[in-house]
C-alpha cells in the first residue's frame, strides 16, 4: 500500500480543488497528442487530428480530455486504495481500448507540464514531488490488470 504524508494529501487535494477540468483536461490531452504524435493511434474515430491547430480545436478531443481528468478524481477521493479503485478502468484500457501502458506516463508528463504552467511559482519542487508521486501511483494502477 502507498504511504501518503499529510502534506502530500494536502497538496494533491488542493491542486484538484482548484482545477478547471474544462480547461486543464483538454490542454493536457492536446499536448500529449502533439508532443507524442504516436498517441494519436488511439483516436482514429475522433475526427481531424491532422495538425496542432486541428487537434486544439477538435471538440471530441476536448470532451475526452475532460473525461480523463474526471477519471483522476476517483484516485483523489480514494488515495489509500488507488489500485482497487482503478481495477475496472485498468481492465477497460487493456481489454477494450488496447492502450499500451507506456502511454499513461506520456499523458501524465503532459499533465504535469500543464499544471506547472498554471501554478507557476506555486509548483514548488515539493509540490512537484507529491504530484508526480500521485500520478505514478495512478499510472501503475492503470497498468496493473494488463496480462
Amino acid at each position, binding site marked *: 500500500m502507498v504511504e501518503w504524508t499529510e502534506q502530500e494529501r494536502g497538496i494533491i487535494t488542493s491542486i484538484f480543488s482548484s482545477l478547471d477540468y474544462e480547461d486543464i483536461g483538454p490542454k493536457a490531452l*492536446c*499536448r500529449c497528442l*502533439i*508532443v507524442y504524435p504516436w498517441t494519436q493511434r488511439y483516436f482514429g474515430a475522433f475526427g481531424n487530428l491532422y495538425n*496542432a491547430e486541428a487537434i*486544439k480545436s477538435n471538440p471530441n478531443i476536448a470532451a475526452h480530455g475532460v473525461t480523463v481528468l474526471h477519471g483522476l478524481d476517483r484516485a483523489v477521493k480514494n488515495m489509500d486504495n488507488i489500485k482497487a479503485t482503478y481495477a475496472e478502468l485498468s481492465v477497460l484500457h487493456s481489454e477494450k481500448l488496447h492502450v499500451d501502458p507506456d502511454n499513461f506516463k506520456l499523458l501524465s*508528463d503532459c499533465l*504535469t*507540464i*500543464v499544471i*506547472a*504552467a*498554471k*501554478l*507557476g*511559482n506555486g*509548483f514548488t*519542487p*515539493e509540490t*512537484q*514531488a507529491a504530484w*508526480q508521486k500521485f500520478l505514478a501511483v495512478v499510472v501503475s494502477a492503470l497498468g496493473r490488470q494488463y496480462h
Partner: protein
Amino acid sequence: MSLTQKDKAAVKALWAKISKSADAIGSDALSRMLTVYPQTKTYFSHWPDMSPGSAPVKAHGKKVMGGINLAVSKIDDLTNGLLELSEQHAFQLRVDPTNFKILSHCVLVVVSSMFPNDFTPEAHVAFDKFLTAVALALSEKYR
C-alpha cells in the same frame, strides 16, 4: 526522431525568449531534480549543501544551462559540437544516461512554469526533441 528545420527554428525561437533567464532555469531545474528524484543526489555527495537554491546548486545549474546554450549554437551538428562534453560525461562524470531524461523533464517543467504562454505544445515538442538529441550526443562516447 531527428531534428527537422522546423524543430530547429522553434528551438531557437524559444531559446531567444528564455535564455536571459538561463541561470534561474538551471538552478530551479536542478533543485527540482534533487527533490523529486532523490536518487540523483548520489552524484553530488561532494557538495556541502544540496538543498534547493543553495550556492553549489545554483552554480551547477548555470553550468548545465551553459551547455544547453552551446548545444543551441551547435544545433546543426550536436555530435561534433558537444564532443568535449561527451568525453567528459563518458570518462569522468559517468552519469547514467537515464538521468539525462530526468533532468530534461525538470527543465521542461521549469520552462513551462516560467513561460506558460511561450511554452506552447508546438514549442514543447521541438524542445523535447532537442533535449533528447542533446542527451544522445552527450552519451556518444559512453561505449
